[in-house]
């Protein structure tokens, strides 16, 4: 039975793991994620969750435990943030390269140095190229729902998935969350079936050294080289958006909240101007849109919920008829601009027909507050600059 509870994002992530019947949890505490392992270890100790909780000594080991557990046939879960995620980096590649459906919420936090415990998305954006799927949540309902959706999509595609949600802004903020019943979640998410079943009569050597070229095995069957394996991962990710859409639709059919669309739309229908953003800032941008509409500007917000695989075609369709787009990001590819802005521009490259003028704003790094007024001003400046043809050649920093 569904019931509505008032939960923080961290609690929602932990509840989603419980509802997903995770079998091995390995996590190391880091602000602002700590409440997730705390909650789950309590559930395991009280017998509310039948799982092994491995109290690892580091994030590197947390992911190492999840990788091995997932290979051996257990549904594996961890959570982290910031430098903890950075410390996992080689294991992230290993998990994706091993094609393991591990799900990991990340309570987004800035990365040192200097130290900050507060929110931005540099931690997960910096892991963009590890081969993981990345979902970004706007609110705590999405945290709960997308962890469950992530497990199903990950197990269909054999690709791990990060469910990213803003530290403090979501992780520590109470919001109403509709909690699905266990039976309903069970009917949505069947037990995990690993790709390889341990069999003493049929031993295998998993992840050995591979050559660069395709070679024949002793039976003459061509076996891929390193690029062959890596291409399969890329192909699965390219085809994965359709699987994510289908999984999101199935979730919607059962629970009434569909995640078929990798994008979130607010007031976009008639908009000339659109914010494009990911995570909780979509909420702030929506408020700015209300203010802009009050001033007579036809503004809207496009939220990117699925960032990897990148919904380039969907973004192109959603943006091609607009005049001005402001991409507001809580991360940057240092030395250039925000990664989302670059990728959005790339989605328009080589296409004929109309295209918006795309602006890039870097905001909210290390917990810097992003006020509605800041976003309204960014929108007004973008619209004016597009009109006068004075488009800046680099990302603009808000609040510096």
């Amino acid at each position, binding site marked *: 039975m569904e019931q509505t509870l008032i939960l923080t994002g961290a609690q929602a992530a932990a509840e989603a793991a419980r509802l997903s019947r995770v*079998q*091995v949890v*390995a996590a190391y505490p880091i602000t602002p994620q700590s409440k997730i392992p705390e909650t789950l270890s309590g559930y395991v100790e009280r017998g509310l969750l*039948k*799982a*092994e909780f*491995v*109290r*690892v*000594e*580091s994030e*590197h*080991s*947390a*992911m*190492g*435990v*999840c*990788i*091995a*557990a*997932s*290979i*051996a*046939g*257990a549904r*594996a879960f961890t959570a982290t943030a910031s430098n903890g995620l950075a410390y996992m980096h*080689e*294991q992230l590649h*290993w998990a994706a390269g091993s094609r393991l459906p591990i799900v990991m919420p990340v309570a987004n936090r800035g990365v040192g140095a200097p130290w900050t415990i507060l929110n931005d998305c540099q931690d997960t954006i910096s892991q963009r190229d590890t081969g993981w799927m990345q979902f970004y949540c706007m609110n705590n309902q999405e945290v709960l729902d997308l962890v469950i959706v992530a497990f199903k999509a990950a197990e269909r595609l054999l690709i791990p998935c990060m469910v990213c949600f803003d530290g403090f802004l979501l992780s520590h903020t109470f919001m109403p969350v509709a909690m699905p019943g266990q039976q309903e979640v069970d009917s949505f998410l069947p037990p995990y079936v690993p790709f390889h079943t*341990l*069999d*003493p*009569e049929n*031993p*295998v*050597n*998993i*992840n*050995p*050294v*591979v*050559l660069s070229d395709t*070679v*024949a*095995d*002793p039976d003459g*069957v061509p*076996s891929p080289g390193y690029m062959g394996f890596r291409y399969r991962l890329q192909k699965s990710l390219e085809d994965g958006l359709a699987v994510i859409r289908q999984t999101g639709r199935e979730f919607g059919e059962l629970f009434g909240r569909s995640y078929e669309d990798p994008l979130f739309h607010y007031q976009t229908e008639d908009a000339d101007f659109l914010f494009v953003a990911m995570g909780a800032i979509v909420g702030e941008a929506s408020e700015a849109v209300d203010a802009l509409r009050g001033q007579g500007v036809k503004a809207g917000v496009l939220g990117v919920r699925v960032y990897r695989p990148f919904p380039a075609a969907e973004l192109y369709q959603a943006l091609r008829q607009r005049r001005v787009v402001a991409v507001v990001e809580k991360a940057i590819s240092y030395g250039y601009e925000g990664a989302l802005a670059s990728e959005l521009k790339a989605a328009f490259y080589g296409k004929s027909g109309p295209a918006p003028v795309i602006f890039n704003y870097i905001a909210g790094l290390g917990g810097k507050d992003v006020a509605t007024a800041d976003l309204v001003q960014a929108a007004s400046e973008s619209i004016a600059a597009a009109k006068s043809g004075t488009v800046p050649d680099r990302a603009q920093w808000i609040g510096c």
Partner: protein
Amino acid sequence: MSGQSSILDYPEQEFILPGNRLCAGCGVTIAYRFILKALGKKTLICVPASCLTILHGMYPKTPIMATTVNNTFAGTAAAASGFAAALKATGREDWHVLAMAGDGGTFDMGIQGLSGAAERGDNFIYVCYDNEAYMNTGTQRSSATPAGALTTTTPVRPKEQLKKDFMKIMDAHWLPYMAGISSAYPADVYKKFLKAREIKGTRFFHLSAPCPTGWAYPTKDTVKIGRMMVESCLFPLYEIENGRLSLTGKSLSIARSGGKKPIDEYLGLQGRFKKITAEQAAAFQRHVDEQWEALLARAGF
């Protein structure tokens, strides 16, 4: 098994097929073969980037007949923990989890994860096969390299620092079982693994694995070198069960009847010690003597 084991007592099944890619005369394979015979086919092996990766072959061929999973360099103990957790969570605790890492992956890069797992008492057997340098990458020094040895990162002046006493570190984790074993004494290896497989929790083996390539001695002398390490009490054979230390095999007979040999001949047989100074060699001998006396005292001699 009691008393002297005969070659007829070992299971016939082989888990390493002939023709692996390791260097001729490698000490690792001798012990590995008996370890797997003792544990049997329901063994899940985890291996970091190391010489064992080479033994296990290049895709799509492998000589290994037990399920093996390769993991990141520093990730061996965490992988073993993950397997142990998954096997427990899915009700398959009849499998053994065997972690096999070198001295680089254990003494150095893997120490954090291993210490974490050992403190938690995760249910697996961990073997550090110690060839006293980063052999897989070409004989660079590790914290397991003894003072006086040349390596490719101490190419002119032999290493100055003493080898890390890793067993002391593991001993500080209150393990139910740990043992020193040598490739030159496979019967002792086999016997200890039969015992270890019946114990729950983290079990740790320090395996002396002489390396003709890195130590610069003729490939035919691996067993000879390994025996010299034990006969000189440089690498004693023993086990520690819940803190109680007992000498075994050759080391026990030396403790009882004497016959401890000096290390001179051992040093002289290896190219890696060709630049060791007389002072270093004397200090090496003193160090061996002190450590052996301490071990004897703890063993009740």
